[in-house]
């Protein structure tokens, strides 16, 4: 009796793990399907006109019919998002490295970064508008300011959280500042950085959309925010919903991609990337 139990135990555990993973994907999909069905039902039952609330199937057909208009806008928004994220990674990590080199630098600069972060970008935008001509630069700067802070603060925390004994060990072996950074501090900061990256990915998208809202269109191709504003003025509500759906889908895609990247990078060594986590 006990023998069978001990043989079955690992199998059962594996089955439960697999079930758990499937539930994590299936459950949100069921809820989403339920919400869409409810939406569809409410529109049908009350005969709500499409300029107030379009049905989900109308949003989908609009998405397909107007793809020539919407897809280039999606590409624009995604380009800005990715560029802002890349710049946020470069800026955030470099600044974090500089900050952790000495207490004096950290005390002098970190509060400034906080000030930049807590000031709503929408309030600062008129200034940026005055100082910067190039449309793309303007939007990128906005998205960057919004996206870089989580990377900066997480990486700073990570760089400072390397094991004290390991730091002593590096000193004992006369490691140079560069060696300590390269082989100890940066790897130790990686899980923290990854956490910051996942937050920043979403924020870069928010930044790209918000910046376009306040900057309006000119020169550089129009992103999804512009489509939403236009659709609002023209009361093309199905198109507005279609653009909104694309933005949400982009946000989810960015999050999923960055989570996969994080799991690949942290691989076998970090708890957060282990299988069977709850």
């Amino acid at each position: 009796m006990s023998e069978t139990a001990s043989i079955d135990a690992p199998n059962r555990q594996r089955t439960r793990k697999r079930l758990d993973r499937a539930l994590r994907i299936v459950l949100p999909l069921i809820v989403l399907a339920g919400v869409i069905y409810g939406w569809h039902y409410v529109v049908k039952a009350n005969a709500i006109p499409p300029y107030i609330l379009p049905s989900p199937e109308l949003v989908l057909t609009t998405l397909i019919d107007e793809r020539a208009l919407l897809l280039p806008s999606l590409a624009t928004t995604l380009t800005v998002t990715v560029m802002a994220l890349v710049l946020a990674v470069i800026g955030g990590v470099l600044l974090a490295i500089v900050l952790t080199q000495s207490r004096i630098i950290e005390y002098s600069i970190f509060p400034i970064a906080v000030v930049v972060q807590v000031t709503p970008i929408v309030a600062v935008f008129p200034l940026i508008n005055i100082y910067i001509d190039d449309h793309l630069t303007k939007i990128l700067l906005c998205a960057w300011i919004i996206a870089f802070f989580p990377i900066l603060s997480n990486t700073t925390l990570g760089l400072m959280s390397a094991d004290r004994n390991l730091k002593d060990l590096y000193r004992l072996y006369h490691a140079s500042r560069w060696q300590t950074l390269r082989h100890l501090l940066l790897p130790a900061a990686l899980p923290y950085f990854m956490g910051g990256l996942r937050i920043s990915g979403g924020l870069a998208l928010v930044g790209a959309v918000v910046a376009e809202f306040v900057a309006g269109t000119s020169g550089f191709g129009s992103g999804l925010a512009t489509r939403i504003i236009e659709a609002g003025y023209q009361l093309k509500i199905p198109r507005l919903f279609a653009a909104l759906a694309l933005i949400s889908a982009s946000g989810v895609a960015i999050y999923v991609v960055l989570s996969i990247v994080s799991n690949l990078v942290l691989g076998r060594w970090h708890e957060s990337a282990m299988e069977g986590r709850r």
Partner: protein
Amino acid sequence: MALSGVDLSVGRGEFLSLLGPSGCGKSTILRLVAGLDTPTSGRIDWAESERGRKGRPRDVGFVFQEPTLMPWARVWDNVWLPLRLKGLSKREAAPRIEEALESVGLAEFHRAFPRELSGGMKMRVSIARALATDPSVLLMDEPFAALDEITRFKLNDDLLRLWKDRGWTILFVTHSVFESVYLSTRIAVMSGRPGHVAETIPIDEPSPRTPAFRTSPAYADYARTTSDALATAMAAPAGEETAA
């Protein structure tokens, strides 16, 4: 003040244990010897051959109470670390790394990550890392304190064998009377506040010592003598120097 009036000399090839209660400054002595902290007064002299830069020893190995491995690096890369910091490439370091892993019995685990190993195996990796540079002096700060007794006994014997083979000088911090008697050629019994050496007890027992030593009458005698010395040292009023 953590330490006061500590005067110790350690001969080449000696296995000296620092034995005492928590907070008596045993670890502080080790950190001072390693050059990780600088003494507010007093000095540490090294033989000419062992002297390195900035008053630090030229080549010491340090084993911490925790294994202190880099979780992102495989066993092999963890052992490579001290050599890598000296500028040795993977290929140049390979023979020494393999030898170090071989001597702690972990050769086939070189590709494992630390989290995949047991506590005792992690400690072995930590020791292998200290071996890699082939130091003449090994400093160990309660290295086996967190391990179960069976694992500890096994590692005790492994350490004695390596010590014998390599002719190291070992400074070993412990709070276990039995461990210090089993391993050492000499025990420095310490007491605290401020930390000082109350008594040194030579263990004149031939090496290599075998597990049979643990049950011998001589072992029991040494353990009693050492326990008594420790009890006396701890009973002495704080701050007063007992005659050494």
